[in-house]
């Protein structure tokens, strides 16, 4: 416990971080240790070289690190939410938004066909031809695209994933 407190004191704005993300102090400390081990150069930032970049920014500081990981906390549905507070980071909607951002590379609020193609390309393991990739992308869009604008908006994205249990799919147990 002593080490926890001392570590916590090293982190600026830790209370705000905890409140915003919902992590417990123990979690924060653990994440901080992990952050430090990843941050080999001790710059206080993680660069893409430290791990494959997860988001658009070139560097990630600890706060962003924690915020991103906070998306993967298992959601707590039973706790009645205080409506005045902003939406918790690990709720279903925010998880979905996070996932959406992974697809929507140019951040225009829609997943266009090209963006989808790019994601597919990186995911397909075998040698799938370009035409096949495009068919798949087309079909995906066709399935999800309700307003026929040839792109998937966040609403459509959310709708297509109604059946998927996002809470389970996008959660890591240890972060509970």
């Amino acid at each position, binding site marked *: 416990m002593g080490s926890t407190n001392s570590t916590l004191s090293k982190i600026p704005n830790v209370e705000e971080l905890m409140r915003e993300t919902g992590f417990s102090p123990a979690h924060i400390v653990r994440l901080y240790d*992990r952050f430090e081990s990843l941050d080999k150069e001790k710059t206080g930032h993680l660069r893409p070289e430290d791990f494959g970049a997860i988001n658009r920014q070139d560097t990630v500081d600890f706060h962003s690190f924690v915020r991103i990981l906070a998306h993967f906390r298992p959601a707590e549905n039973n706790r009645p939410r205080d409506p005045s507070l902003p939406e918790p980071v690990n709720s279903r909607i925010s998880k979905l938004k996070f*996932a959406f951002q992974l697809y929507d590379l140019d951040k225009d609020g829609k997943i266009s066909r090209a963006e989808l193609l790019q994601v597919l390309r990186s995911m*397909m393991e*075998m040698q*799938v031809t370009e*035409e096949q990739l495009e068919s798949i992308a*087309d*079909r995906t869009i066709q399935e999800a695209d309700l307003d026929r604008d040839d792109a998937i908006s966040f609403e459509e994205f959310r709708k297509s994933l109604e059946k998927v249990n996002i809470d389970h799919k996008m959660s890591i147990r240890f972060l509970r």
Partner: protein
Amino acid sequence: MSGLWHGKILMLMVVLTVSRHSLAFQARNANPSNQPGTNASTGNGTENTITTLPIVTWKWHHTEGPYLVALWVLVSWICKLVFQLNPALTNVFPESGLLICIGWVLGGIIYGADKVQTFRLQPFTFFYYLLPPIVLDAGYSMPNKQFMGNLGAILVHAVIGTVWNAASLGLGLWGCWLGGAMGHLNTGLLQLLLFGSLIAAVDPVAVIAVFEEVHVNEVLYIIVFGESLLNDGVTVVLFNVFDAFVSLGGPAINAVEIIKGIISFFVVAFGGSLVGIAFGILISLLTRLTKKTPTIEPGFIFVFGYLSYLTAEFLSLSAILSCTFCGVFCQKYVNTNMSEKSVNTVRTTMKVFANGSETVIFVFLGISAIDPSIWVWNTGFILLTLLFIFVFRFMGVFVLTWILNQYRLVPLGLIEQLVMGYGGLRGAVAYGLVFLLDENKYKEKNLMISTTLLVVYFTVMLQGITMKPLVNWLKVKRATTDEAMLAEKIMNRTFDHMLVAIEDISGQIGHNYLWDKWHNFEEKWLFRILMNPTARKSRDYIFNIFHQLNLKDAMSYVQEGERRGSLAFVRNDSKADVDFNKQFDTDFTDMPDIMGPDHIPVPFVLRDSVPSVSLNMHEQDQKMRESEDFNAHHLLQQHLYKGRKQRHTYSRKQPVVNRDEDEVQEIFQRTMRSRLESFKSAKMGVAQPKKITKHSKKDQTEKMSNGKPADDSKIHSYGDEDFEFSEGDSAGDAAGGSFPMAAYKGGAGIVNPAYMAEMDSNEPMPPMPQIPPWLAEAGEDSSNVAPSQRAQLRLPWTPTNLRRLAPLRLSTHSNDSFLLADSPATQEGTEPQPPLPLQDGRGRGTHM
């Protein structure tokens, strides 16, 4: 309906009388000692010296054995048939319960005839013939992703739960016996522990039978079912250990023996699993080589599966574990290596055997009860057993689940735990084991048999009946019907990847991390060793899903067409490249495995009423759907026409029927004529549907090569016709799409290709002069169709005359006046515009 009932009952009675006669016949000849068995022994050995040539002899003693077996199997299955007639009945009672009841009736009849129970479920028959198919089927159709995902929970329940059940039951009974609640019983602690261990195990047969009708959600099902399979390791060990202890006698048991017992558990369990995996590897390796023997290919699975069972039994390891893991391990590789036809064969046949076995087991469970010689009633014993089973099961489940929930991502709720506890059904395995007991060692064997039977009846019938209402009342989450949207699957896969990354970043060895590691190992080694190189290349999760979805849509289109009644659909076997030729029948079976979602070949189930169009299509407007249906029908008709001329050559080696080149040529000519006809009439302004899917290259290939639109996704690809036009491929689609135009006379709907002959006579254009120009273009197929070159390269076979179909795609090059007139519509790079009549004509022709 009731008339049918009576008829069936009557028939059943007839069958029974026949068998009764045979029974009576043997009973007369049977030895006084009357060995019980599924084949009652006869002593008809006296040879009569013949005095004259007998024309017909009564060879009962020769055919008796197989005859009885076959007859009994038939009777059991007829029983199933009988009560399936009354759906109200099956809604309330679980099938297994009804089978047992019928077994009672039959047993009563037989007993009445012979005054002794000549038929009984023999442990040997059960364990060596009836159980292996069920277990093999369970392993082979196990949804691996969920199974492995919940393996921790399953193992905890299977091992610790079963041990707890056995111990608590044995000790509880012992305590009560000591306390005198059971009166005088010639038994002891060890015997009671043995009894506890054999009755404690949840039974896979019963679980399948009951849960199959209840459709709870996948996680719940897999935990209970997995437990029922894996606890065999524990049951076998406990049974053997306690049996040995009873033989050794009380005083001889010391710490050494107990430790040996514990060690034997590990040996049996792991040994059994390893045997299973070894056989799984063998099967996978073997299926790499079976390309040349497609007919026998499916058989290997069965033989190997059975061998794995027997080998484990031979080595006194857990046979059920062996068989299960064999199936679990090999399914992925085997399904990839074997042709689709073989995969379907295996799956279907396995279901037949498993289901059939299960039916026979339950009927015999009923029959075996009607035997006064085994019945001993001891109120205390029986009631206490029932009570303890129930109570201790729930206790065990609650405690274990509470522990598990600390470690699970998705905690199991109270409702799920209730169902898990209630689903702890005992069944035939317990019965088989209790019959194996030696009655000299176990004076109370009959009491144990009676109790076991009663427990089995109680769980299967009572718990079976009440399971459905209970599940409804508790509002248990039900199995999600698998709509398998491609978007969903892709997102799911993305999440998986994401989670792997996050786990890696956060430095946790989590579930996904393990999954990823296993996946990498698999890719590196297992796929290379165990899978065909060609098969390996075609494996890709998302692509397979895409493929499956396309096939599914195609199927539903076919169904729609058939329902509208105007297609004489002829099933057509051809080379495996045409994926179109799924065996349409197989997918309408009522597959009890509800958990197919992640299992690539399995989700190909149209669980909804078969003729309904695929769910995807409901979102589009009616007109488009109809038009697409029609297009599909056109495409299919092209296919159909070929089929009509098929000659069925009988061949034992090849399931494939030869195709004739001349036939193809004739088809070509006819379709060309009809196409020209259609172009004239194809001026309907059907709205250009939204661009949907671009069918894959592979499908396009086949379409071009065979001249028939084997491409299912083509059905979707209206807009893609434009797309393909721009690539110069469009003609291919046009050709494919318009070939069946023959059938269309404005508003005629879909017409049987058999009527195409009449069409020809109406053809204003003389056929002959038109053909040569098309044929003349045979030479220059390559230049205009860049993608098709690639396609042609990939073709496994391209008969020369078929290649002539290729230039048909080139509407831009056609000499057909009509086409030329409309050709601007077909220029490269045309955008999808609603009023493009020619394209519509290509695609659809006229229809209402």
